[in-house]
């Protein structure tokens, strides 16, 4: 009962916030609705017993990717009217992408003969919330059967990481703002200040 209520809560909120991502007028609001959609999707995964994937979704997408999205949207001065002007022009393309995704999902569900998902129960009898969890299973599969694909994904990520550094790195000769931390730490008050007690009316020479 509680699981069914939770399922409908998460599912409705996910669909609603997904719609509001597209419909809200302010891009910052869009990103925040997107975050809510991620969060509800994670809730659905917990209900289906995939707690490891759910936590990774929150950590990676909500904790890192969406923060960057939010930043870019906040920092850029976006003209809302200009953004909405392109809506009609790009709508067919967006609809096409949506249809392709829907068809792919249907193909997976029908060809994969996916049965109904068992929702988790509070005592963890249906979905493995306690004991043998899917963390171990995913780990065992990734590092044995799919080890080469996993390594390949790692290499792709490494290449893109290096690519991002190369693309954004700029050797600036004009500004030499390097800090020598060791020198800063080694600096003591005695090196920087000198205490003098001049006689009155004499002053000090620097």
């Amino acid at each position: 009962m509680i699981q069914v209520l939770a399922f409908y809560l998460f599912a409705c909120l996910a669909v609603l916030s997904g719609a509001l991502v597209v419909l809200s007028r302010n891009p910052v609001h869009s990103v925040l609705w997107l975050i809510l959609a991620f969060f509800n999707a994670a809730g659905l995964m917990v209900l289906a017993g995939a707690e490891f994937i759910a936590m990774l979704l929150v950590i990676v997408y909500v904790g890192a990717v969406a923060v960057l999205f939010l930043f870019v949207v906040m920092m850029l001065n976006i003209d809302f009217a200009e953004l909405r002007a392109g809506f009609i022009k790009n709508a067919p393309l967006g609809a096409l992408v949506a249809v392709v995704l829907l068809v792919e999902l249907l193909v997976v569900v029908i060809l994969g003969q996916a049965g109904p998902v068992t929702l988790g129960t509070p005592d963890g009898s249906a979905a493995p919330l306690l004991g043998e969890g899917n963390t171990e299973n995913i780990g065992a599969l990734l590092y044995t059967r799919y080890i080469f694909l996993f390594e390949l994904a790692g290499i792709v990520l490494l290449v893109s990481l290096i690519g991002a550094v190369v693309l954004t790195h700029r050797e600036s000769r004009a500004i030499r703002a390097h800090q020598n931390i060791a020198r800063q730490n080694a600096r003591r008050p005695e090196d920087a200040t000198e205490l003098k007690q001049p006689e009155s009316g004499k002053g000090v020479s620097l």
Partner: protein
Amino acid sequence: MTAFFQSLGMTYEWAWFLATFAGILLIALPLMLGVAMIIYADRKIWAAMALRRGPNVVGPFGLLQSFADGLKVFLQETIIPSASNKGLFLIAPIITFTVTLMAWAVIPFNSGAILADINVGLLYILAISSLGVYGTVIAGWASNSKYPFFSAMRASAQMISYEVSIGFILVCVVLWADSFNLKAIVEAQEGHVFGLLNGFVFNPLLFPMWVMFLISSMAETQRAPFDLTEAESELVAGYQTEYSSMAFALYWLGEYGNVLLMCALNAVLFWGGYLPPLNVDLIPWFDVPGIVWLLLKILFFFFIFSWVKATVPRYRYDQLMRLGWKVFLPLSLFFVFAVSFYLMLTRYGA
């Protein structure tokens, strides 16, 4: 607790619901009281280190100071800047406060006293604490003011940077404990050094991890010396500049709740959580309930936090980033390799 409610003649689901609700109240209400007292303790410790008296007027020894402050902000007018984004402006402190409370769900207070004994407890804490940055960023943006916005940018860069090294530190602990479940992590620390001591901190490979975790947790909670998000000499009050009354109090509560959470994590992950420090039954301290040990450890770490706040000057922002990315990240990565190498040799065979 579910069994107790079931014995009153309820169905399983109602009993589960009521037990969970009671568990939430049992954690949240003492936590709020604890935060009020810990603010008082923080001010007293800080005052003592600065040779001042600290709060000593309201109640005996000034014990009721936090409640007086709470009443004051409760009665204040909520001022919402007219140029702000009102909805988000009010949601931001609620996010900070809620996220702080949510993370406590998986902390084991005793071997049986956990609200949610989930498999991925540690990942849950990482996920929830990564949400904390939104309270700050949204506040900075919705205030529509320069200083809060700068502060929000600083806060998110700081929290993301230190979360990376915290993640690697936690990987070392998880490797050694062989589980993400916090209770299993605590129990893995029992008799860690030749069956004598309880706690990963006594392990030479994990002790440096604990030092880094302590410093990272100060940076993660934006405590001094890493409180650059509210550096008053540069940013007025940072992201809280435009806030008043209860919204401001929610930030205050959330901040100290986060500090307590980080102290609890230090205790649970490295100092044996609810286990006594020595695993020897010479003194009858196995009879002391586990929650007392956990609370003592939390208070000890909070004292360290206060001590550091009172004595260490604030970092410069580039120093903070350098420490996170150039010192902690490579070091923690190295220790992930070292720990897994050692475990591979000893526990799992070559």
